[in-house]
């Protein structure tokens, strides 16, 4: 196995994580806080939902816990377009 192949799996995982982000639909959110409560690293997801902002937090694991726990379908995964500005 070539040396660079050792890092391939990790690189792919990073690509997958950076390609996705959690996006809220504020119109559905009632600020119950279940998302923030269940975030394993303590991101205040609810605050993002109030402001209608994607979870732009470098610590976000995109583990999907908040997406799955939200009882009202407020949160969903969306593709990030991190480099859109740079490409322009």
């Amino acid at each position, binding site marked *: 196995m070539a040396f660079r192949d050792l890092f391939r799996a990790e690189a792919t995982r990073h690509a997958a994580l950076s390609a996705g982000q959690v996006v809220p*639909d504020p*119109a*559905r959110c*009632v*600020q*119950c*806080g*279940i998302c*923030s*409560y269940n975030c394993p690293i303590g991101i205040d997801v*609810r*605050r993002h939902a*109030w402001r209608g902002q994607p979870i732009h937090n470098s610590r976000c694991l995109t583990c999907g816990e908040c997406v799955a*726990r939200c*009882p*009202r*379908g407020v949160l*969903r995964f969306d593709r990030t377009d991190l480099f859109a500005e740079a490409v322009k």
Partner: protein
Amino acid sequence: MSRFVVLGSGVAGIAAIEAIRSVDTAAEIVLVGDDPFGYYSRPGLAYYLTGEAGEKQLYPFTTGDFQRLKIRYVKGRAAMVLRDEHQVEIDDKGRLSYDRLLIAVGASAVPLTVPGANLEGVVKLDHLTDARRIEQLARRARRAVVVGGGITALELVEGLISHRVEVQYLLRGDRYWSNVLDASESQIVEHRLREEGVELIHHAEVVEVLGKRGRVTGVRLLDGRTLQCDLLAYAIGIQPRTELAKKAGLAVDRGILVNEYLQTNDPDIFAAGDVAQVYDPLSGRSILDSLWGPAREQGWAAGLNMCGRKQAYVKGAPFNVTRLAGLTTTIIGTVGRGRDDDLVGIARGDSETWRQLPNAIVAQTGFEVNRLRLIVGEKSLLGAVVMGDQTLSVPLQKMIAGGADISAVREKLLAPNAPLADVVVDFWKEWSRST
């Protein structure tokens, strides 16, 4: 410097304050609230009762958030609005002057009026104080009776079940929430409730709460039966808290009447949220909603208008996502009609619009727990109920709110045994690309 007084610490009041602050950093803002717990997620109380959210999680704002908004908070109840003096009288706290006033004091539960309704153990779910009380009583209760309809009644049922209380749910009519859900949807909800161990009793009306030493021991029904219980929870509707407005001589119908700028018949007084009956220029009617989303939007628009910005509140298709017997359900637009014997007027998490079903054709599909019902108008979809799988709920919400022209697929939607979900998905792909 302008002085704004906001009555009510719910989401409408908070959104109004955010709006005022977004355009006026110098204004003095006084928030008057009579809820001892201030601003918290009222819909979140359902999850507090089931144990999914702790009490701490119910508070969306930190002290820092309030500090940033530079609010002076007065804990108290507004007793009177003195319009000529531009003042509000607060119980035991004197008077506050205002340039512009917002009344956003919400709604409260329609009280149970049968004999014995004041016994210890008779509960409703209006506020965190009530939820705490229910939680406390449920810990030692063995049997509970729940009466009423709509979302709150089921929140009570589910909250009690999760505390391992045996629940008997009494319905006055044939089925659950008969003027919003259709017969099959009611049946699905009732079936799931039975599976969770709830005993449903139809055509049952409580005429007396029985008690001993001031505590509930049971209920007597109209047909003479008695049921034993140590807790009676009711949710028979809500009524906007209009007393203050009535005393002040403001125009009141079912709620405080406001125009599309959330302004009452006094140009310096505004109303928003559950207490407001808002004029909808599109339908020409004044409508009550008891939903978090519209309350926030109304509050925001009211705040801007209080600052002199002309911002009309445009009522979208009302929708709510809720769990009915554990089944995620989205209700969008107009889906039912008539009255429900279990409710007086409107319930929490409810909209009058849902019951204004015109003569439209219903297309439905589904089996067991995944069910889709569409209300198909001449050119657009008027409403939808999505139970179970929620994949279509966001597209339908956007298509109904956006008045998507469905002429091209109308025939397909109305064909017998039409694969509704597929037709909707295909149409959505096209429509969302073109808008």
